[in-house]
Structures are given as structure tokens and as C-alpha cells.
């Protein structure tokens, strides 16, 4: 398979993740606009159904990720996440020369998804929904946010190693299990720092928000680079150590 086709597949896969996943977060904020929130820790997601709001957002991510993996996994591998690409590269499973093209594809797909989502829904998706951009919640420090993202991505990468990378894994379950794992992580850690687990998933909404006159959140971006990459790399090396 040519690198060009794999580039397109990675971009499309990340597009699906951001359009439907981050889009669900934006829609939740829009439909909860004006709803009273009993505690400052609640910024709107959770105002409608408590943790059920996060579960719904998590399921949107889960199903979009599963679809992307089953549809595009054979073509590009469907990493759809720079942290996953870097973790596979760090453990010498992915060629160095393809790391940058894969990450560029993921960032491109995520950005296009956020722009198209804004075009689909309108400017309220930017001004109210923030295009589903992630940021630390009230009371959460920069360090805590990095820790939450790292722990969440640690579980995601551990699942990828066990259910997909390991040749002993039963075939056919990877897409479903990995999608549901992301859904579960989002349900628990979404209200800490947004549970991005993926630098591209945060990059797309950030860029589109800025281009369309929304909030400028770039000061938080290091959280979503350091946390996910650290968590994914540690998980990949730990899995290799445990299974060696």
C-alpha cells in the first residue's frame, strides 16, 4: 500500500474520530447551554445526565473509533493518534521515515473535521461548544491534567498492545475493544481534562476555534502532547517487558 493511500486513510480515520467524538462534546455543551450547574466543576457536560453525559460522549468516540479501525485498519493501521504512532515507533514497530507523514495526516484530518463540524452546525458550535476542544476543568492543575491524560492513554495503549499488537491476541476484536476502552476512559476522566488521549484530537478543535474566532486554548496544548505520548510510550514498553 502506497504511503499516499495510507496518508489519506490516517487523515480520514482521525477526521471521523474528531467529527463524531469531539462533535458529541460540542453538541452536549450546546444543548446544556443555560442549564444550571450545581458545582463549578461542572461546566455544562454533566448538567443533563451527570456521568451519563460523559458516557454518551465516550460512546460517540467508541463507535467512531471502532468504525475507523475496521474500515481503515488494513490500509494504514488506523493509528488515528500521534501518541499511538510514536509509541509503536519507540518500540521499533513502526518505521522512522513514516512517523512524520502519519502525524501530519492525523493533524490534517482532525483540523478538517473541526472546520467541517463548524460548517455543519454553525458558529454556536464554536462559541458555545468550543468544537469540543479539551481543557483542564476548574480546579485541575496543569500537572494533574497531564497525569490524567497520561494515565488514560496508558490504558488505551495497553489495550492496543494486548488486543492488536500481540500476535497471540484473538483476531477480530481489536476495533471493538479499543473503541470501548476509549469510551470507558472518557467516562471516567472526561471531567478532569477532557480525556483527549490524543494530540490530534485536541489540535483540530484548537486550530479551528482560533481560525473561526473562538477561544484561544493553545496554552493548554502541552498537556495533550506530553500526557498522551508519555502514557502511550510507557504502556508499550511495559507490555513488552511483561510479555518478554
Amino acid at each position, binding site marked *: 500500500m502506497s504511503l499516499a493511500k495510507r496518508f489519506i486513510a490516517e487523515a480520514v480515520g482521525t477526521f471521523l474520530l474528531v467529527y463524531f467524538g469531539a462533535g458529541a462534546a460540542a453538541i452536549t455543551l450546546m444543548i446544556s447551554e443555560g442549564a444550571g450547574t450545581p458545582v463549578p466543576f461542572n461546566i455544562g457536560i454533566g448538567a443533563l445526565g451527570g456521568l451519563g453525559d460523559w458516557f454518551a460522549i465516550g460512546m460517540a468516540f467508541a463507535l467512531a473509533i471502532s468504525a475507523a479501525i475496521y474500515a481503515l485498519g488494513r490500509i494504514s*493501521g*488506523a493509528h488515528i493518534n500521534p501518541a499511538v504512532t510514536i509509541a*509503536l515507533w519507540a518500540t521499533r514497530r513502526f518505521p522512522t521515515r513514516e512517523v512524520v507523514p502519519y502525524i501530519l495526516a492525523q493533524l490534517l484530518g482532525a483540523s478538517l473535521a473541526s472546520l467541517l463540524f463548524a460548517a455543519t452546525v454553525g458558529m454556536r458550535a464554536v462559541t458555545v461548544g468550543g468544537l469540543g476542544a479539551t481543557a483542564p476543568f476548574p480546579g485541575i492543575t496543569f500537572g494533574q491534567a497531564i497525569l490524567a491524560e497520561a494515565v488514560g492513554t496508558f490504558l488505551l495503549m495497553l489495550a*492496543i498492545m494486548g488486543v492488536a499488537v500481540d500476535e497471540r491476541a484473538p483476531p477480530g476484536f481489536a476495533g471493538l475493544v479499543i473503541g470501548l476502552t476509549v469510551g470507558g476512559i472518557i467516562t471516567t476522566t472526561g471531567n478532569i481534562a477532557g480525556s483527549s488521549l490524543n494530540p490530534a484530537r485536541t489540535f483540530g478543535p484548537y486550530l479551528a476555534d482560533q481560525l473561526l474566532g473562538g477561544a484561544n486554548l493553545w496554552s493548554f496544548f502541552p498537556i495533550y502532547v506530553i500526557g498522551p505520548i508519555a502514557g502511550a510510550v510507557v504502556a508499550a514498553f511495559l507490555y513488552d517487558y511483561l510479555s518478554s
Partner: protein
Amino acid sequence: MKCYLCAKEGKDNDAVAICIVCGMGVCMDHLVREEVEVWQGGYPFPAKKLKKTVPRILCKPCYSAYHED
């Protein structure tokens, strides 16, 4: 083992292979041997076609059923 399809025609020929689908013993005249591509990978690595293929033997009824369309 005798060829099942020959036996149905009243002939008595030895079977040289077994159909992987129905398990029927078949002679050289009643089998189709084809090479099947083997793919490796899929997630999180792109699938790639291996250089070598795997042989597959089917009886003629099973082969025609698979290739009906």
C-alpha cells in the same frame, strides 16, 4: 478412500484429495486446486500481501458454489 463423485457415477476411482469445505474425497478429475493469497496485519499495522500463496483444494461442487456469482 474412493472418489465420492466417481462412485455416484458408478465408477471406482481412488481419491487423491479431500475437499476442505465438505470433506468429500475426490479424484484428480473432480477437484479444483487454487492458490489463495495470504494477508498479514490489519491493525495497528497496514495489511500486506505475503509473497507466497497457500494452496486450497475444493471439490467441483463446492468450487462452483463459491464462484456462482
